């Protein structure tokens, strides 16, 4: 238990782990949806502290990773144009497009800027009326209220030089796609805490019922994850499949009503392609008709984009929890954070990056390797 001292409260961590070890009598496989949770799990070795019979399958909840290649290539194309200021969150800079990334576009003279908040991009638009300012609006439900409010303000302020390149994704349809896959091994979900801070938990009971899976809303910190796992294991052992909130300090059942109203006002549900996974029906948001003028895909003609994924990259299988990152032949050899083949290797939430950062050395010929293999097999 070499990692446990890093926990905020090592005694509590120990008690939670003892409870899990005492409760788990059979093999169970649960998916943590969120990439932030994946990083926390791998960084703190939570998967290795759990009983061998309790497997954590890493989910697709890395917004940077699932943003489709076509949208990345459109972003690169728009960002390269003269007269454009292209604003993005920092973690998009090195996501590989077909032949380059935003970092490279900037080096080639594109005006790419990193912002902390989409409202900063709005500010840039106000100060640069002669430039077209585009914000790369990606993310899960957590980020949607911010992007929605930004477009709402742009329209209210009549900012004609601002637009949003949108690639928003939603968790519940992804859970359906995962559960409907014939090879699915997932028996329970740790739902992403901050997604539920916005959305609440009302979308989940019907999923838990239909697929007979426990869904436990879980935070991001190591102790939060242990508590989520503890509750999932308890439900699985009892044959239950309920929605539980293990992150009540940040999540209310009704979510954030103001944020939900703004999402409803600005976005509409649409089909969405997920990089490496494919199109999932009704799994995204696009700008509603009334806000279409602020859609960068309409404002800029970017129809000539030709995409080509790496033939070696297996990030799609990683994102669906079908393989662990270090089972990919390219992992740590041709694919590293310096020369990433897929987005999962560059994002601070991508599973491949987590394994590279925290598991690369341990996963060599060391004892961790056979253990890892047996969990997967």
């Amino acid at each position, binding site marked *: 238990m070499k990692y446990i001292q*890093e926990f*905020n409260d090592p005694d509590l961590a120990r008690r939670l782990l003892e409870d899990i070890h005492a409760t788990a009598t059979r093999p169970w496989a649960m998916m943590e949806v969120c*990439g*932030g949770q994946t990083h926390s799990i791998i*960084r703190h070795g939570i998967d290795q502290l759990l009983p061998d019979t309790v497997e954590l399958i890493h989910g697709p*909840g*890395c*917004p*940077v990773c699932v943003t489709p290649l076509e949208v990345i290539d459109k972003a690169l194309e728009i960002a390269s144009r003269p007269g454009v200021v292209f*604003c993005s*969150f*920092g*973690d998009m*800079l*090195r996501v590989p497009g077909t032949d380059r990334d935003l*970092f490279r576009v*900037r*080096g080639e003279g594109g005006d790419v*800027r*990193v*912002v*902390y*908040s*989409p*409202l*900063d*991009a709005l*500010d*840039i638009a106000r100060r640069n009326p002669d430039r077209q300012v585009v914000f790369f609006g*990606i*993310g*899960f439900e*957590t*980020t949607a*209220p*911010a992007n929605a*409010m930004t477009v709402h*303000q742009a329209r*209210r*302020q009549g900012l004609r030089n601002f637009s949003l390149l949108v690639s928003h994704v939603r968790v519940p349809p992804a859970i359906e796609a995962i559960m409907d896959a014939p090879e699915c091994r997932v028996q329970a979900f740790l739902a*992403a805490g*901050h*997604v539920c*801070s*916005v959305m609440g938990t009302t979308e989940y009971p019907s999923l838990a019922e239909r697929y007979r899976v426990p869904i436990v809303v879980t935070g*991001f*910190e190591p102790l939060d994850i242990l508590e989520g796992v503890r509750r999932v294991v308890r439900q699985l052992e009892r044959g239950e499949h309920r929605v539980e909130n293990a992150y009540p*300090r*940040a*999540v*209310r059942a009704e979510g*954030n009503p*103001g*944020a939900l109203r*703004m999402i409803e006002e600005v976005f509409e549900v649409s089909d969405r392609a997920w990089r490496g996974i494919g199109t999932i029906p009704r799994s995204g948001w696009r700008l509603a008709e009334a806000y279409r003028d602020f859609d960068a895909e309409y404002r800029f003609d970017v129809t000539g984009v030709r995409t080509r994924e790496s033939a070696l990259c297996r990030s799609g299988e990683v994102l669906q929890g079908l393989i662990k990152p270090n089972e990919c032949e390219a992992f740590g050899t041709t694919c590293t*954070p*310096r020369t990433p083949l897929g987005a999962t290797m*560059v994002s*601070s*939430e991508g599973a491949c990056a987590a394994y590279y950062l925290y598991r690369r050395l341990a996963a060599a010929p060391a004892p961790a390797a056979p253990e890892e293999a047996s969990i997967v097999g």
Partner: protein
Amino acid sequence: MCLAVPGKVVSTEERDGARMAQVDFGGVLKTVCLDYVPEAREGEYVIVHVGFALQRLDEESARASLDLFARLGLMEEEFGDAWERAAEEAGMPHPDGDTGDATQEVVR
């Protein structure tokens, strides 16, 4: 990217029809929109994602999270110079040479 960081509301003001606040994230001050948590008051803690407060949070939890995030280097990831980090990962020079902050837009 779905990380939401707790911070303390230091001051509030109306701007362009929105309720904005200065929020202190363990020493880093940022401008944050409070429209989604209209009940938040100065001195209280909120959890913030990309410049928007999403929920209120009790002080004890907030402090514990901030301590943890600081220890794990997550504050640097959230508020540091993304170009510097990207350059380091890519093994390339910073696009602006040494003056990293030039491209990190700051809200006023």
